């Protein structure tokens, strides 16, 4: 009957769920049985019995094969411990490195932020294209922010001003990172407190603002996690705030690297409670980082279009004429935090993929070599009726056992590597300290292990199972599969060498760049001791600041060993910037020319070792009505007075004319890699700054000096705490930490890659010697000198390496061009690197080839001829 025939056809199709071997053995019987039952029983009942049976018994058969394979595989692995160790080691290195990089990516890119729907959050910045010194990520002024309130794009619009607060804690003064936030700050981020409540719109009014929400860290350190912390008070900047809430541990926003130049992770939030004049008057000063939450269905592009329109309309209304030209820039929240590190993560992922590829091809090569030794076994199993599928499956199972074992060791390696990374502190990676081996990372590792197991197992498995039984039995020797897989093995070695060349050349270029950055002329002495001093209330007048600084410098200079003690408004590499417009007498004003401006004492230049190139230092004590003297940097002189004498020239900054009395050497300010910008210096004591840096040059030990100076600072005013004490060398180290990290990471990957490639090369050469024992024996018996035998083996190895070098160099030239932005002061086709890398690889490859070759010369012809 037709329905019965189609039922049988369906059942036949279902049989494909079983392993092929089982299906071939029992398939027809099973179909027969199924047909028999159909004839004697109702069809529905047969199907109800059969379907679950197919599912469970097919799975069972697969598991049986897997179990048998595992047992068999474990036995094979036990029988060749050297092979297993090398393979496990290669896999562990490859997968360990990949896991470590993935856990970084997981922490930075994948793991969700502690805010609701962060992908709908955007920053709105206000750059000003008229002034190229103004950064893109310029926080909007308060009047801009309040003029934006009528818009169609955002469901919420909030702002905050990060800052540091002086906290009085049992007589001790501590500086704490905090933020003054608008009333809807927490509701816009959709961040909920752990205890109590967040800051709410009612708090954001003058007179109601004395409430504070603290971080989990502050709660733990200051209140030992006391549950009754709510209602306690904090003394911040001489005012008293009541604690109304505690945030969960993950919420420290804004934290390091959340946006360019954001400070340390935040520990407390208080209401901004702006006065009406601050909200409306641009000249009243004040700005806040602005965050918008996009309405559902509104894209970043649409929001950008609307905000551009609004800003163009309000620009002439709220901004004074000389400052007009501000535009609104809408940037996704996540991109802003991750944008700067994304290339680094790409670099790491790319490098680690190459390492994994090398590790895979290495293990594939080992498996191929072993497969050649297992021709007998495969032949016999084929002769006994084992199907090719089953042999492939067996080999794959062994490969997977190796890969999973390697993966487990890899997790240990990744764990160790992450500890090192956290100690190195790679600079600007946001949320790095949250990096851990969580469930997602472990799942990734298992997945990567299985995938690589398949990757390196499939090729050898297919090659090994292609047994020509006839020739095997005829020859009874090892030659059954040698021919086909040799070219495969050679190809794998060439690939490994080529990939190693790319990694090594990349590492070489980065190392050269790092050394260039290290040896850059910073313009200052690295041994100078510096610290930051911030004054708040009580220092509103220049007279008070003047008095304070005079007594401070006077006392510091009395300390033993101190040679110079200076003051400056913005220290190099401190991330503090200050710029102003200038107009030069007798020169037409170029469009919006701006320079860096600093206030400094003459002792600042002496303590920092900044050289005076022309003229003289200005007088620190110049009377206020004296025509102001100023100094300029060398690049200022070169830019504005290329052919004239600089000394005696006059320029205007603000409404006062100044005379240039001296030229000092350039200083790298924002970063070590950026070339110095034109800078002007005015006498510090004429306009003391309440955020200043003390710079001290001494012959004493820095640690002791820091505590002596701290004692003086406390003695002068116990409410002022020195911040970030340390030498300029420490600031330089911080400034190069990102580059150091990427250089070290790539160098480690390159070293692993080269090592793996050499192990692979050594293995191949040793195997080749073993395979050609008889031939070499005959050559020696016929009188071939040792040198000839040596050349025979080494020549073959070096031919492979040379092929790898050629491909590798071609790949390097193609890839490094893409990565030119990583380099500093080095061309992507840097001849030194491109010559040194092949030489290095050739040298170590020679060693890897020489050992097997030397063994070949020691072959005893008599034993060799009996060998096969």
């Amino acid at each position, binding site marked *: 009957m037709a329905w019965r025939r189609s039922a049988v056809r369906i059942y036949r199709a279902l049989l494909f769920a*079983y392993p092929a071997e*089982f299906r071939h*053995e*029992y398939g*027809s*019987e*099973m*179909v*027969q*049985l*199924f047909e*028999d*039952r159909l004839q004697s029983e109702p069809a529905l009942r047969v199907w109800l*019995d*059969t379907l679950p*049976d*197919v599912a*469970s*018994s*097919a799975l*069972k*058969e697969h598991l*049986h094969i897997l179990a048998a394979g595992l047992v068999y595989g474990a036995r094979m692995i036990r029988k060749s411990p050297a092979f297993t160790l090398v393979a496990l080691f290669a896999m562990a290195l490859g997968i360990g490195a990949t896991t470590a990089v993935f856990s970084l990516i997981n922490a930075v890119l994948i793991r969700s932020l502690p805010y609701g729907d962060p992908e709908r959050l955007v920053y709105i910045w206000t750059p000003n294209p008229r002034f190229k010194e103004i950064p893109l990520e310029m926080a909007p002024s308060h009047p801009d922010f309040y003029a934006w309130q009528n818009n169609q794009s955002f469901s919420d619009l909030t702002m905050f001003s990060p800052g540091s607060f002086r906290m009085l804690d049992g007589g001790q003064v501590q500086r704490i990172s905090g933020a003054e936030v608008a009333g809807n700050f927490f509701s816009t981020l959709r961040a909920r407190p752990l205890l109590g409540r967040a800051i709410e719109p009612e708090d954001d009014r003058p007179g109601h603002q004395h409430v504070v929400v603290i971080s989990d860290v502050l709660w733990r350190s200051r209140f030992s996690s006391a549950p009754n912390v709510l209602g306690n008070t904090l003394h911040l900047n001489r005012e008293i705030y009541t604690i109304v809430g505690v945030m969960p541990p993950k919420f420290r926003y804004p934290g390091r690297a959340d946006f360019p130049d954001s400070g340390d992770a935040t520990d407390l939030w208080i209401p901004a409670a702006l006065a009406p004049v601050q909200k409306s008057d641009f000249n009243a000063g004040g700005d806040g980082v602005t965050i918008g939450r996009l309405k559902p269905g509104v894209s970043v592009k649409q929001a950008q279009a609307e905000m551009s329109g609004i800003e163009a309309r309000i620009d002439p209304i709220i901004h004074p004429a000389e400052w007009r030209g501000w535009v609104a820039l809408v940037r996704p929240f996540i991109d802003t935090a991750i944008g700067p590190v994304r290339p680094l993560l790409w670099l790491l992922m790319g490098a680690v993929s190459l390492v994994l590829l090398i590790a895979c091809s290495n293990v594939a090569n080992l498996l191929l070599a072993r497969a050649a030794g297992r021709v*007998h*076994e495969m*032949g*016999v199993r*084929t*002769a*006994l*009726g084992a199907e090719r599928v089953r042999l492939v499956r067996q080999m794959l199972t062994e490969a997977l056992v190796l890969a999973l074992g390697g993966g487990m060791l890899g997790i240990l390696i990744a764990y160790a590597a992450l500890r090192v990374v956290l100690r190195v502190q790679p600079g600007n990676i946001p949320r790095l300290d949250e990096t851990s081996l969580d469930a997602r990372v472990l799942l990734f590792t298992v997945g990567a292990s299985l995938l690589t197991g398949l990757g390196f197992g499939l090729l050898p498995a297919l090659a090994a199972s292609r047994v*020509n*039984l*006839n*020739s095997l*039995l005829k020859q009874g020797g090892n030659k059954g599969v040698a021919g086909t897989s040799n070219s495969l093995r050679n190809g794998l070695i060439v690939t490994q060498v080529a990939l190693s060349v790319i990694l090594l050349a990349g590492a070489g270029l980065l190392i050269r760049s790092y050394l260039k950055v290290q040896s850059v002329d910073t313009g200052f002495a690295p041994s100078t001791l510096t610290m930051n001093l911030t004054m708040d209330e009580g220092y509103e007048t220049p007279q008070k600041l003047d008095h304070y600084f005079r007594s401070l410098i006077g006392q510091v200079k009395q300390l033993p060993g101190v040679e110079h003690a200076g003051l400056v408004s913005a220290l190099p590499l401190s991330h503090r910037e200050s710029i102003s417009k200038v107009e030069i007498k007798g020169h037409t004003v170029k469009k919006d020319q701006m320079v860096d401006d600093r206030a400094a004492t003459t002792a600042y230049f002496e303590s920092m070792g900044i050289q005076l190139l022309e003229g003289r230092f200005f007088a620190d004590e110049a009377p206020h009505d004296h025509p102001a003297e100023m100094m300029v940097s060398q690049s200022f002189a070169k830019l504005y007075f290329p052919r004239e004498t600089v000394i005696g020239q006059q320029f205007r900054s603000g409404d006062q004319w100044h005379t240039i009395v001296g030229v000092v050497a350039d200083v790298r300010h924002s970063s070590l890699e950026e070339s110095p910008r034109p800078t002007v210096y005015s006498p510090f004591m004429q306009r003391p700054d309440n955020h200043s840096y003390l710079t001290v040059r001494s012959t004493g030990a820095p640690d002791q000096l820091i505590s002596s100076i701290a004692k003086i600072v406390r003695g002068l005013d116990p409410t002022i705490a020195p911040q970030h004490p340390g030498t300029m060398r420490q600031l330089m180290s911080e400034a190069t930490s990102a580059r150091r990290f990427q250089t070290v990471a790539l160098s480690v990957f390159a070293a692993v890659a080269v090592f793996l490639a050499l192990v692979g090369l050594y293995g191949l050469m040793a195997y080749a010697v073993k395979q050609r024992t008889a031939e070499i024996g005959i050559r020696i018996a016929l009188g071939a000198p040792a040198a000839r035998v040596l050349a025979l083996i080494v020549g073959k190895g070096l031919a492979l390496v040379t092929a790898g070098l050629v491909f590798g160099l071609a790949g390097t030239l193609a890839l490094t061009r893409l990565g030119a932005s990583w380099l500093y002061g080095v061309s992507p086709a840097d001849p030194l690197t491109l010559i040194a890398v092949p030489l290095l690889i050739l040298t170590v490859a020679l060693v890897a080839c020489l050992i097997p070759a030397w063994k070949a010369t020691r072959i005893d012809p008599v034993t060799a001829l009996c060998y096969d």
Partner: protein
Amino acid sequence: MTGDQHPQYTAYEKGTPRYYIARHYIVMRYTSNVKHLQDLTPSDLLPLTPQVFHILVALADRDQHGYCIMQDVAERTGGSMRLSPGTLYGSIKRMLEQGLIVELRDKDRPDARDDDERRRYYRLTPFGRKVVKAEAARLSEMVEQARVYGLAPKRG
């Protein structure tokens, strides 16, 4: 035979030299691997799954093919155990590997009258008989213990 063809089905026809070569390899290389099967004692395999037990019982008095085994088991259990093809042949495969049953060669097949050429017949081995006996003894021992506490019907 040409060298290009895959030789696995013709290479070891009995009586040809290759058959003996292959056997030589088997003896040389695989005796160590199969040795543990010879060392198996019946108690190593206990307890049996109900399916295996019933299949062994079905083969106790005569050699049968798959469908007969299935019918036999269904009859004896009053229809409560119906062996589906996958379970049946999965069990048979394992029982062959453990040496509990053997597949009959052509000359040993039952009379041509009820023989069905397409079907494979299975026979209980002496070892299989020992195993099923041991299992039956184990089961009745368990029933006996239950009976002491009135948990099983009295021996009629």
